[in-house]
């Protein structure tokens, strides 16, 4: 038996097929993951993401601490609730985790940030953060009293706002993309992992079951991890543990854009190693693959680039929106726009593209 979110019984009542995900019993689907995927792109759906870990960072040196801890720079968060996506690196420049950080308090005395980190890396991340916090006036608080739901899709914000108080509806209406704000003891953010518009709502564990009941009662479909994976893959978003891990540089994981090199004086953990890699030229890159023929690309299949070398698929699946198979793959940096993949003993030609195949329901490839 794995760990369970407060919604476990409700998932079963809704007909979920449960699976283990990083030590958690989570819903894979509630009938058809392909249907759930379409529902999110066309309308909206709700995901239980309460297995993820919320860590509040506060104190007079919270900002300096995070500027050391993270490869992206929290100084870029200029307004209340602004958020950014960052890698957290080790000294060798490998990725310990990827996460989102929101600015929650910005007075000189009360600097505050909220981090959301992955479920499977929770213990590792917290141990690392505590170990690095020693030199700073900062307090780390893991928020086990909070749960989280993501409601994603073009109609998500409107449909959720309809069900909430006027104050919360107004907040939702005003939220900018990649911003999260508190209203009472709820925290509502316009972020997500699907490439669609939508919300991620952090709320007390005591309130998440009634809230999911309200959403489902209003006709919003529950969505499982199967669809979550095909949605994020179409959006070109990485999955930690598959597309990158501690042995992988962000430069080889399509995360170079998340590194804040300036100011040069900001000595974040892993900077020296990353600068050396950048100077030498990173030998690999993470690309997108598209299979035009019938078949499914899957993790660990070998990628061959004629005259250049080989790589490997890190994440692959069938894309319901594109009706063909897509993948992310780590390949030699000089790879052009064609390659071949070995599927069950035969080689198939694939198109090589930038990661990101669908955005806001529209195909990019």
């Amino acid at each position, binding site marked *: 038996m794995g760990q369970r979110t407060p919604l476990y019984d409700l998932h079963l009542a809704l007909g979920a097929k449960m699976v283990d995900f990083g030590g958690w019993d989570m819903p894979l*689907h509630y009938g058809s993951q392909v249907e759930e995927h379409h529902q999110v792109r066309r309308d909206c759906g709700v995901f239980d993401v309460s297995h993820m870990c919320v860590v509040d960072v506060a104190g007079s040196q919270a900002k300096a601490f995070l500027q050391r801890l993270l490869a992206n720079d929290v100084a870029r968060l200029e307004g209340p609730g602004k958020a950014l996506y960052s890698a957290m690196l080790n000294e060798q420049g490998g990725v310990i985790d990827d996460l989102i950080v929101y600015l929650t308090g910005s007075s000189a005395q009360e600097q505050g940030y909220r981090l959301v980190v992955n479920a499977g890396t929770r213990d590792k991340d917290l141990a690392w953060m505590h170990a690095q916090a020693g030199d700073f006036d900062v307090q780390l608080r893991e928020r086990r009293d909070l749960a989280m739901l993501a409601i994603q899709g073009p109609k998500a914000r409107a449909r959720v706002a309809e069900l909430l108080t006027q104050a919360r509806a107004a907040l939702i209406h005003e939220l900018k993309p990649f911003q999260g704000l508190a209203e009472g003891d709820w925290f509502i953010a316009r972020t997500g992992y699907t490439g669609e518009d939508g919300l991620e709502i952090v709320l007390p564990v005591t309130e998440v079951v009634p809230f999911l009941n309200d959403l489902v009662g209003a006709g919003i479909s529950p969505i499982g991890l199967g669809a979550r994976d095909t949605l994020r893959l179409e959006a070109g978003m990485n999955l930690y543990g598959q597309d990158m891990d501690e042995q992988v540089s962000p430069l080889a994981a399509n995360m170079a854009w998340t590194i804040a090199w300036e100011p040069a004086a900001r000595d974040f953990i892993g900077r020296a190693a990353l600068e050396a890699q950048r100077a030498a030229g990173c030998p690999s890159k993470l690309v997108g693959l598209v299979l035009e023929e019938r078949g499914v690309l899957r993790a660990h299949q070998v990628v061959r680039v004629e005259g250049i070398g080989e790589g490997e698929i890190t994440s692959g699946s069938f894309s319901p929106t594109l009706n063909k198979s897509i993948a992310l793959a780590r390949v030699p940096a000089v790879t052009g726009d064609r390659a071949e993949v070995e599927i069950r003993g035969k080689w198939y030609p694939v198109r090589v593209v930038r990661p990101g195949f669908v955005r806001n329901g529209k195909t990019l490839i």
Partner: protein
Amino acid sequence: MSNIPADLRYAASHEWARLEADGSVTVGISDHAQEALGDVVFIELPEVGKQLGAGQEAGVVESVKAASDIYAPVGGEVIAINEALVDSPESVNSDPYGSWFFKLKPSDASELDKLLDATAYQAAADADA
């Protein structure tokens, strides 16, 4: 608890077989199989005219989760394939016993007796779970 119609025979590899009035055998995959596979996205069928032995690979079912070989439950010649299924692979999930893959002219009708009946297949499927 999956659906296992009593009038069909089953292979341990989860194909169902139905003996038709004209002596041909219709083949598909069971409810247990489609449930384990998840959403089916591609199907590869054998060619009409192909001679298959009992237990020989006859095609492939590819789902979001994995690719799975389909085996001929009895030996024979492929006399028909369900082209419509290739265009609507999701039918396998919604209607596994109405979604036939191919029909065989069996080389030895007694091979059907070697297949599992519904009760025996239920036991095999339960052991699988």
